[in-house]
């Protein structure tokens, strides 16, 4: 079994900006270890000379010309923000 401990889960969760409550930690630890065991089955196949496949049809995502197209769009997202004012998103003070 792939063994992770509580500190591993907490470290990964911190990277993901998530916190796991102490009361549910055992359950997460168990589930994630089981999932990693499932995933470990991948080791049974030799892929040394195989190229990774990131897009099923192997086409590159299209890019568009880098030009400003619609200046009014910036208002729309701010209407639905939890806290916004004067074209700014409001968050707790970062620099004291």
């Amino acid at each position, binding site marked *: 079994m792939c063994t992770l401990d509580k500190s591993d*889960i907490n470290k*990964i*969760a911190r*990277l*993901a*900006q*998530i*916190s*796991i409550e102490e009361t*549910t930690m055992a359950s*997460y630890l168990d*589930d*994630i270890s*089981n*999932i*990693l065991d*499932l*995933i*470990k*089955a*991948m*080791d*049974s*196949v030799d*892929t040394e000379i*195989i*190229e*990774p*496949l*990131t*897009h*099923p*049809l192997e*086409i590159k*995502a*299209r*890019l*568009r010309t880098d030009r400003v197209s619609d200046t009014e769009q910036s208002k*729309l*997202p701010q*209407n*639905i*923000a*939890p*806290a916004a004012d004067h074209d700014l*998103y409001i*968050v*707790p*003070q*970062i620099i004291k």
Partner: protein
Amino acid sequence: MYKTIKQLSDGLKNKEFSSEELTSDYLNRCESHNANLNCFIHLLPEQALKQAKAADHKIRQRTAGPLTGIPLVHKDILCTKGVKTTCGSKMLDNFIAPYDATVVARLGDAGMVTLGKTNMDEFAMGSSNETSFYGPAKNPWDMERVTGGSSGGSAAAVSAGLAPVATGTDTGGSIRQPSCLCGITGLKPTYGRVSRYGMIAYASSLEQCGPMTRTAEDSAIILNAMAGFDAHDPTSAQKKTDDYTLNLNDSIQGLTIGLPKQYFNSELNAGIAEVIQNAINDLKKLGATVKEVELPNIDMAVPAYYVIASAECSSNLSRYDGVHFGYRCTAPQNLNDLYMRSRSEGFGKEVKRRIIIGTYVLSSGYYDAYYLKAQKLRRLIRDDFSRALATVDVILGPTVSQPAFRLNELVDSPIKMYMSDIYTVPANLAGLPAISIPAGFIDKLPIGMQITGNYFAESKLLNIAHQFQQVTDWHNTLPPKFL
């Protein structure tokens, strides 16, 4: 309430009823049954009736198309302008979409009437609709059983006759599996065939939006309106679309169907094996032949899928930060606290589990062993399908490993839940189109079969499905409590 799109469209054209009357009837039905089925997150009666009136005007002006005035429901993963789009999550419980997804806009432009937004597993992560913040949807065939997921609400709505059409999305089986468990037809198109613009992202290289209907013919009609290049979606395929209704009535004489050796082994549920064998016999009577094919790396599909999907999910869901939209925790002490608590409180357990897995497999020291490895296995799986499809027209197999299970049966067993995707995830990894169609019953619960085609072969899949539905009645068999 179980009329096909064509029957409804003819009825509107011949003035047997108006779109407003039709929409009111469907809305009444939705309101009556939703308490039991919980297949809607929200109904949109005012908007629907307004759209219906506009449709009636077009019908009177004789400018209506084949979909004008026909009601549908959208999975609540598709942005609908001015309307809540929750993705089944507390994180987006307050999110009013500022624009329409391309699929929503196209079906709206075709004159369709949106009855409401359907329930789903949270952020499309789940196979039972049980991870939804709004509670599980119930299977119309047995309301103590799951609908399947993640497009569970859409499947239940069509199955129970609450809407003739639903949209769903499919990242690892989320159209096909609930369609199978609820006894309807569900199509996952080729990757890139239908625009993902405005479809809230879970795993961007795997997912597609598709139709969920009672019949293959209805799916073809809807796909005509949905499919096609979209400049807003950088992964949208520029390949020309077909008229997906054109070849429905072609004979399947001479069709070769591949049966993967790895699917039809002693591990296949005996009841499902019998249903599928009967379906194969029906297809043979229509002139198809079968041969065994090999998919040697197919056992790697579930592990590879859960690495890739989790990795992509951890990236896609990083946008939910309590700053720009969606849930924000109360009284954050600092920016870090804002991020941490908004995300921890806003996401449910399964979503957090997949974000953690995804973060781990992408992290320094593990990227090669997990993520890169999974992408290499993806190529092997894709190549297996390419080799097989070079020798047969389509591949046929089960959609699921068991009929609809009981509510709460697998909620504490994530591995068992993940393994229930065993027959569906390969098509997502390879980007191939696949359809699930009703094929029989086990203990009074519907079971479907899955047909996978080559890239952009939706017409062929719909043709085979339609021909099967001309000689069988499984797709017309209705849940007894919703007649």
